[in-house]
């Protein structure tokens, strides 16, 4: 048996509920015992468009939260932005719809063994998986501070129930329509200077992740980021979702963000080489 994709299972899964949350859709999907293998950071790959669809590739979505003991058994929550044809199709699937899902996939956020002080940084709906992570960190006794940012307030995803697991939450919008004006990365240098942040967990656009890395590089702060590159398969066979990563041997390798990610150590990603030929 291979270690790659070792928990991944291809199942037919039912949509338990689908409701609109601001600009996003919250889907709860029944996945039974597989929920026990899902960790914050993992993602799923879902077929879209039905059997006669002209969309031949799966769509990847971060698992925002799982429940192992809901009324419907094990479930997972996805927060989906209806951007393209595939995600729009998924957002139109109502209760009882059957989905072809591969779950769970990819790496997960590492959880500290000690109750340390952590900072969670989310951009847009990239914040979704951070709330499930916050619950886990909170249960470990960590102090959890959170910064969320977006271009505008309607793109902030911050559910009421999610806020319970965080000690503090600050919101930044570029158009000042919600929270404070500015970028979510603006306050990070001050936060690091004022408190003993051991780990920054981040999820959002690549530019945000890169900006966080430029702040944490050379410091003791560990930066665990969930990266995003477009992928065709989600299981490591298509080689499209690669990013340049510094290897222990000193060479740079194009690693697949589906099996070596999405959660990666930000300090080894060669951010200025993303999207360039090596």
């Amino acid at each position: 048996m291979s270690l790659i994709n070792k928990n991944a299972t291809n199942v037919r899964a039912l949509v338990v509920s689908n409701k609109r949350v601001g600009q996003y859709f919250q889907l709860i999907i029944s996945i039974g015992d597989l929920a026990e293998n899902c960790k914050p950071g993992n993602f799923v790959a879902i077929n879209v468009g039905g059997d006669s669809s002209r969309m031949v590739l799966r769509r990847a979505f971060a698992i925002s939260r799982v429940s192992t003991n809901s009324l419907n058994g094990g479930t997972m929550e996805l927060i989906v932005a209806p951007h393209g044809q595939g995600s729009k199709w998924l957002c139109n699937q109502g209760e009882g719809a059957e989905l072809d899902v591969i779950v769970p996939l990819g790496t997960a956020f590492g959880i500290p063994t000690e109750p340390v002080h952590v900072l969670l940084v989310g951009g847009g709906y990239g914040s979704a998986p951070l709330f499930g992570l916050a619950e886990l960190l909170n249960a470990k006794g960590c102090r959890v501070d959170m910064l969320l940012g977006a271009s505008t307030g309607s793109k902030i995803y911050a559910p009421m129930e999610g806020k319970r697991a965080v000690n503090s939450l600050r919101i930044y919008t570029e158009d000042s329509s919600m929270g404070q004006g500015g970028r979510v990365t603006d306050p990070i240098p001050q936060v690091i200077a004022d408190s003993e942040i051991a780990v920054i967990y981040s999820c959002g656009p690549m530019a945000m992740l890169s900006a966080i890395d430029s702040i944490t590089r050379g410091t003791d702060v560990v930066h665990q980021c969930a990266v995003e590159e477009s992928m065709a398969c989600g299981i490591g066979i298509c080689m499209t979702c690669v990013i340049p990563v510094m290897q222990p041997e000193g060479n740079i390798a194009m690693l697949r963000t589906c099996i070596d990610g999405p959660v990666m150590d930000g300090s080894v990603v060669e951010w200025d080489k993303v999207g360039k030929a090596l």
Partner: protein
Amino acid sequence: MSALDFSTTLGNAWFPAPTFTASGCASSGRELAQFIDLSSIGGVVTKSIMNKARSGRPTPRMAETPSGMLNSIGLQGPGIESFIAKDIPYLIDQKARIIVSIAGETVEEYSVLARKLRAVSGISAIEVNISCPNVENRGLVFACDPEASRKVIDGVRRTIGGELPIIAKLSPDVTDLVSIARGVVDAGADALALINTVLGMVINLDTMRPHLGGKTGGLSGPAIRPIAVRAVYQVHAAMPQVPILAMGGVSTGRDALEMIAAGASGVSIGTASFGNPHAIIAIQDELKHLLVSKGFTSLRDAIGFAHRPESE
């Protein structure tokens, strides 16, 4: 189900089933092994391996298109030494039958690769990929040039000797595919792999520039299947004695049977595995049922059936 001989041959290599992974669509095999038993399919065609490690083209490397996708990987891989040390033993361990795909930037590189593979046991055949569209210089697509194609195959043939079957992988992006096919068969190819991806492009309307990092990419998926069926049919008509491994958008057992009827001895599944990691198994099962339901007792009787006159 009545007895069906599902086996096939490519040159002197025998396979229990006519269904294979497509080059570049199964990575090292480890990734798919979570979903399918690699020994239960006809064989694994590896990614095209080069002499040195190669990082490939910049991202974005992928664009979905109607019933297909463009890819622009650029032959990313670990290089032949690492491949022989790590990937081949894994596939042998899985009891997979192995077709090693090789790619080079020069005629000499193909010969070097053949020399390094000559001593490796457990390989059923070598696919010589002379048609990858994702190289910097389109002049490097040997399969667009009859003389260059012949030279590559001749070099590999001389190096490898007569034992291992050579499968030449050709591009559909040529004016006269049959003449290219004849050239490589004359130079010593035992079989042909048809077709590689079709060169394409998508413009990103946000940036108003080509979407892919490599600008152009290879189109695959059901969108190109009729092109592949046509290519297989034309080449089989010209050279019915040369076995063809067919690929290009095969997603169902029916698609596979179309290829076989057009003249294919085997079928590779690529893009379909991206959408469904079990695709090869499903295609294999459906193909078996189709053959039996049509009264065939042997896969071989169906190969090239579409070329028979109406009266038969």
